[in-house]
């Protein structure tokens, strides 16, 4: 494994988006992973539609019937991948733009599918496996506890205590090695996370959280990788 890696440098990550006042983080996380997978499959970076998931994806977690994707009221990334598999794929952002509102009719047009899921899987909570899957398969959809993110401005977040109860879906795009933790008097490796609260939040829309063997803020326990197949619009 390299000590540093960043999918943004490979051109696999679209610009930071903004979910607005809508609990659709799960759709941005899933779409970000699929955009990366599509890039790996086609060498083409295409911004895909979160709104399609918000409007059309009502997939339920097979293990918990009440955990169904429901637009601005929340969802799960794996449910979204399952929906994408069943629906056949995702449309472009420009063909199905984001409004940040739900309870609107699904306007999915199969003839405008540009990216399709071939399969998805859950990654082991071992941090080396997370890094290896990131490098090999592209950006990963992950869940995290966002308690410290309300006041975050920049730097490497490494709080002394952080709940492991995940409440936010984000996209893991890379890792670095030289985040400096002055109190702990050592260099701390960190993860690079793409958020969906616009570029004015955090470090141009990104969050850095320290990497270590302790499942910081629950970020190791709901990690998904997705693979895409090349799809041409009909």
């Amino acid at each position, binding site marked *: 494994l390299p000590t540093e890696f960043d999918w943004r440098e490979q051109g696999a990550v679209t610009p930071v988006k903004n*979910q607005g*006042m*809508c*609990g*659709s*983080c*799960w759709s941005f996380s899933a779409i970000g992973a699929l955009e990366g997978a599509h890039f790996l499959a086609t060498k083409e970076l295409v911004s895909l539609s979160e709104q399609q998931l918000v409007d059309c994806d009502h997939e339920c*977690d*097979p*293990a*918990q019937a009440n*955990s*169904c994707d429901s637009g*601005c009221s*929340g*969802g*799960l990334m*794996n449910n979204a991948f399952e929906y994408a598999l069943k629906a056949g794929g995702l449309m472009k952002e420009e063909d199905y733009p984001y409004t940040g509102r739900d309870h609107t009719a699904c306007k999915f047009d199969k003839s405008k599918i540009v990216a399709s899921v071939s399969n*998805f*899987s*859950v*990654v*082991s909570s071992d941090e*080396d*496996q997370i890094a*290896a*899957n990131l490098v*090999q*398969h592209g950006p990963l959809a992950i*869940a995290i506890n966002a*308690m*410290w993110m*309300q*006041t*975050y401005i*920049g*730097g*490497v*977040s*490494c*709080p002394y*205590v952080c*709940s492991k*109860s995940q*409440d*936010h*879906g984000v996209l893991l795009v890379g890792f670095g090695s030289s*985040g*400096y*933790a002055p*109190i702990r008097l050592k260099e*701390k490796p960190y993860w690079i996370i793409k958020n969906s*609260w*616009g570029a*004015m*939040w955090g470090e141009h829309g990104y969050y850095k959280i*320290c990497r270590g063997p302790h499942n910081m803020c629950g970020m190791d*326990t*709901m990690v998904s*990788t997705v693979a895409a197949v090349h799809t041409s619009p009909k």
Partner: protein
Amino acid sequence: STVISGEVTDGFVNPIRQVVPEENDEQLLNAEHHFTLFKSKYEKTYATQVEHDHRFRVFKANLRRARRNQLLDPSAVHGVTQFSDLTPKEFRRKFLGLKRRGFRLPTDTQTAPILPTSD
């Protein structure tokens, strides 16, 4: 004089208690100035004076929270963000949308094969 504050958020009790001086708190934070800058930067407007005053109170609480967070997370920078006029509960309700299911995964979940990570 001092005040001891322990924060309880969504059932999560922060075990670290911090002792901070209470007097001159507002002076130290210069809250009104920060609130003016905040409203300007994020183009925040409030429908009524009552709403404005309520948001200012929330903003001040978040300034204190950011300062506590800074001490408990020293390698990051914490401060005023676009969410500084929201209570933690409002923040969760409006901007977080992961359907919780603890650490359980469905039984039919496909797991990624273990990849080699040395050499």
